[in-house]
């Protein structure tokens, strides 16, 4: 051990003692090693999202124009976000599914805010390989479960945007968001940014 290497090394058996020069070698190489690590930290961390990208980590969206049964596509952190105003039938359909039937069991209530069960806000990023599912635009294919349908490899989501069939492993992600007022949501609020 470098720490106990004294120049004398008196209490050590002859031949195994650490000489002053060995100690200097170990110390010098260790410090150089620490220096190399310290230098690589900025080189690696520069690749993380910069401050301006993080600053965009919150967006406010006016939802007053979205009629029952309609949905819009907006952008948060350069990713598509789906905001849907569910119809009572869609809410019923979602609540009627036994959790045991789901690949990624979650209730509609768990995926929406209390008292706002009609506002379904999810990322528009298929959890399989990241395509944008169809179903927001008027007349788009909403798949066999009436929610969203990913054309890439056929993942079908239900009216709570939960995965039902196809290769996607999990439900569409619900981002962090909060209702600023009844007609304004802030996406990313309290998020990880």
């Amino acid at each position, binding site marked *: 051990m470098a720490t106990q290497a004294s120049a004398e090394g008196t209490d050590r058996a002859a031949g195994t003692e650490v000489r002053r020069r060995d100690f200097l070698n170990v110390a010098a190489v260790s410090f150089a090693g620490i220096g190399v690590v310290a230098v690589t930290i900025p080189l690696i961390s520069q690749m*993380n999202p910069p401050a301006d*990208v993080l600053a965009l980590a919150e967006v406010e969206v006016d939802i007053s124009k979205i009629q029952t049964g309609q949905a819009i596509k907006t952008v948060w*952190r*350069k*990713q598509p976000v789906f905001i849907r105003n569910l119809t009572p039938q869609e809410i019923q359909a979602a609540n009627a599914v036994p959790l045991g039937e789901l690949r990624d069991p979650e209730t509609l209530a768990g995926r929406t805010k209390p008292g706002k069960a009609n506002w379904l806000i999810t990322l528009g990023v298929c959890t399989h390989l990241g395509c944008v599912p169809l179903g927001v635009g008027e007349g788009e294919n909403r798949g066999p479960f009436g929610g969203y349908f990913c054309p890439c490899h056929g993942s079908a989501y239900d009216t709570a945007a939960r995965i039902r069939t196809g*290769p996607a*492993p999990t439900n569409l992600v619900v981002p962090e968001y909060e209702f600023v007022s009844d007609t304004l949501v802030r996406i990313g609020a309290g998020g990880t940014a």
Partner: protein
Amino acid sequence: MSFAWAKPYEPKSAFGRWIDARLPLPRLVYGAVGGGYPVPRNLNYWWNFGVLAGVFLTIQIVTGIVLAMWYYSSVDGAFNSVEHIMRDVNAGWALRYIHMNGASFFFIVTYIHIFRGIYYGSYKAPRELVWMLGLVIYLLMMATAFMGYVLPWGQMSYWGAQVITGFFSAFPLVGEPLRIWLLGGYAPDQATLTRFFSLHYLLPFVIAGVVILHIWALHIPGSSNPTGVDIKEERDTLPFHPFYTAKDGWFGAAVLLVFALFTYFAPNFLGHPDNYIPANPLATPAEIVPEWYFWPFYAILRAFTVDFILPAKLWGVLAMFASILLLFFLPWLDNSAVRSGSYRPLFKRFFWILVVNLILLGWAGGRAATPVVIAVSQLATAYYFAHFLIILPLISKFERPLPLPDSISTSALHGERSETAPAGITRPSATTATPAE
């Protein structure tokens, strides 16, 4: 180099001697690819593809450097700068088409080069490191090609970047932070495009560096040959120059002719038309397909559809990486003392089954993921792993190889028929023929 009879370099002029005493670069060249490097006399055309890979690497570097004089790595400008190169820059269309098709041909010749190595057992001692450095080159090539394809910022560029960086999110815990770190944001964007350009410019030079190590390691034992028998005497070899410089030269010209046919008459045949649509982060193309040379790996990725302990998506990603990492162990998975597949009747059969299997995987990877395609991917993926992990070790245990010729010379100088035919059974000569025999 390493043979006693290798001709030493003798500078012919006073200037040559002056240089040789100070910077012996001509001596290095003479000993590496000149008259001072003895090479087996019986190499067939499959041995031309290493040099061809070098030719295409050079083409990519040269055309890439001039494209970078016009290319603009901004999300708003990239697509248009490529169209500007195609329409307005003098000879820009030719340079870009050469670079595009050059990437495909680089992969074609490298795949042939790799399969040459597999058929002739080139990965065996003492060339294990030659093989492994080759695999490192191959991995670097894939990274370079992927990032290059993102640069024009078309629909396939964008969604390819999204899907491929999405692989990393399959890893538990570190996955998502890793993906964000790679992209420099939450989705592909300016940060992604600029860093990919930086690395796409860098990596070919790293490849060139590893190629030097690859060839250095090769030149210690020297090239293997179609018989797989070691060099024993001077008669077994020819000097690289003029014999193999001439053969590589004419064959290189022939391949460049085929390359020109593609580049000038079917420049988009190997590409995907959707990449001529500017990137749109809010709309996915109907089907995301990578470039053809990634199809087999894409098929392996998609072959896993059920969760089994780990999520299916993670299995797919692990299997895809494993399919290449596996090849690093090839020298130890195949224990047969005989190198060349020409003398290994069982191995030869399974080699061709493997080739067909890979073509099948490639076919599946390039198609929309219908149930049939997925089923084919699953069978072919299973077979791929079985070939290397089960079949190959078993073959090397139970196979009875054919008798080897005494030396390269006896084989190449047509003594082989009498050498190898066991009493009473005549076999057509397998001297230096193609693996098809």
